[in-house]
């Protein structure tokens, strides 16, 4: 084989480039209603498939299993259970974060789905899989229809 090992990247001739593309994403039909409920009412909602007896969070307009259209919207409350979590010490470039951040997969209680989010108002050593947490919303005037309208989830006292 003719390929040599290059241990010094300076030996590699290269040109920096940019892919000139930007994107504007829509929330979608289900997403718009989901985020309006968060923004205006501080409510987390899901859609239910009565055929499969599943509650989707985040909500969808169709069931991926039976392919029925979903039209039953329900308020699923703001509490959930930590399924798993990680503590991020570095950012995407591998640089140390000033403050480690705890991210968790939170199963919303009484549903078949959940949300990824940060854990706040908790001591790191107390965060456990199986812990009950609840959503903390930003003040209404600061909400803009984003997943970050939920500030974080905090342990249920």
């Amino acid at each position: 084989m003719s390929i040599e090992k290059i241990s010094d990247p300076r030996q590699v001739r290269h040109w920096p480039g940019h892919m000139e593309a930007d994107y504007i994403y829509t929330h979608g039909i289900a997403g718009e209603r989901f985020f309006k409920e968060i923004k205006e009412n501080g409510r987390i909602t899901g859609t239910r498939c009565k055929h499969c007896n599943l509650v989707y969070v985040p909500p969808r307009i169709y069931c991926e299993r039976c392919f029925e259209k979903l039209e039953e919207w329900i308020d699923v409350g703001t509490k959930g259970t930590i399924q798993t979590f990680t503590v991020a010490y570095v950012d995407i470039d591998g640089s140390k974060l000033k403050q480690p951040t705890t991210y968790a997969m939170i199963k919303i209680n009484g549903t078949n789905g959940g949300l990824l989010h940060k854990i706040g108002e908790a001591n790191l050593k107390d965060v456990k899989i199986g812990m009950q947490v609840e959503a903390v919303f930003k003040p209404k005037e600061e909400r803009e229809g984003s997943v970050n309208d939920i500030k974080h989830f905090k342990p249920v006292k």
Partner: protein
Amino acid sequence: MFGKKRVAIVGAGLTLFRRNLKETGKELCYEATKMALDSAGLTLKDIDSVAFGSAPDAFDGIHMKGENMIDSAGGWRKPFSRVFVGGGTGVFTANAGWWHVASGLFDTCLVVAEEKMSSCYPHPAHAFTTIFDPIMSRPLGTTLIWIFALEMHRYMHRHGIKKEQIALVSVKNKKNALDHPCAQLGANITVEDVLNSEIMCWPVQRLDISPTSDGAAALVLASEDVAKKITDNPVWIDGVGWCIDSTYWTNRDLYYPDYVEYAARMAYRMAGIKNPPKEIDVAEPYDPFDYKELHHMEGLLLCKKGEAPKLTEEGVTQRDGDLPINPSGGLLGVGNPIAAAGLMKVCEIFWQLRGEAGKRQVPGDPRTGVAQAWGDLMQYGSVIVLRR
């Protein structure tokens, strides 16, 4: 037998896996493809079709890179198709090559997989950020490593697995890679080295992760009648399988890869395998992170759920153990140019079953092997069963 024709692998090729190789992606494809053809004693004239695999365009930074690679993969004026299933692409490309020939459409098919991840500057982790849902996940600052960390933690929690047990996989695979002439990260390390390495996103540490790599791999496939004219030593593709789970990974329990089990069951049914741990002599499960080897051993039904760490501790998965796992050195040791890494695993099983794996050869005259890759958003499994 499934398909109209039985399909054999008759040649394989692999480039060095390195970060920042001088060769372009096209040049890497050429090296691997030429080596595969040479090893089968064939030229491009003998090839009827090409199945090509490469992961996200964003790594190489060439949109529609399948088209860009056509000539270097031997596709000039031939039926050419690119398949893409994220990290599962490497093994799935071999599966696609199988149906090209098994269908009876073609007598021969080149299978080529390539990735040049170092083009993505400063780090390909940035290319991964756009795989996440733009509304639900990206605003949180999602990175690739912490979604793996979530899965690893769930797996550890469910079975009470310790970091020390998982680190043994990294130690084994980097050691195995010392015997691989293409390897990027062969090394003698200890469990303590892994546990003392930088914490990225707990429980994931620096030495739990495979590297960023450039590389390419290739196979030559032929139908039974043609293969027997080419070689006395064909390796048969006796089973293929693939399966995908829900994109909404917050709706699944991450402790077990159901989709790998479904893909494995499809391939085993085709190959007539009823007792995988007994009937499979050597395996190359996908190991971009050390815990993934264990996770995938369980999904491949090579052991019970939660049992893989114990087998690793007992030495069963060592190259000279009862069930050698990743004798190549895997992605942790050989490197991880995504699609090429998956196909490297199929190359390894091919060489192991032919007795051509050199210093990496597992003892006991292996006859049946399995390779597996995994990808998309922790939801996709591709599996291939090879027999001598």
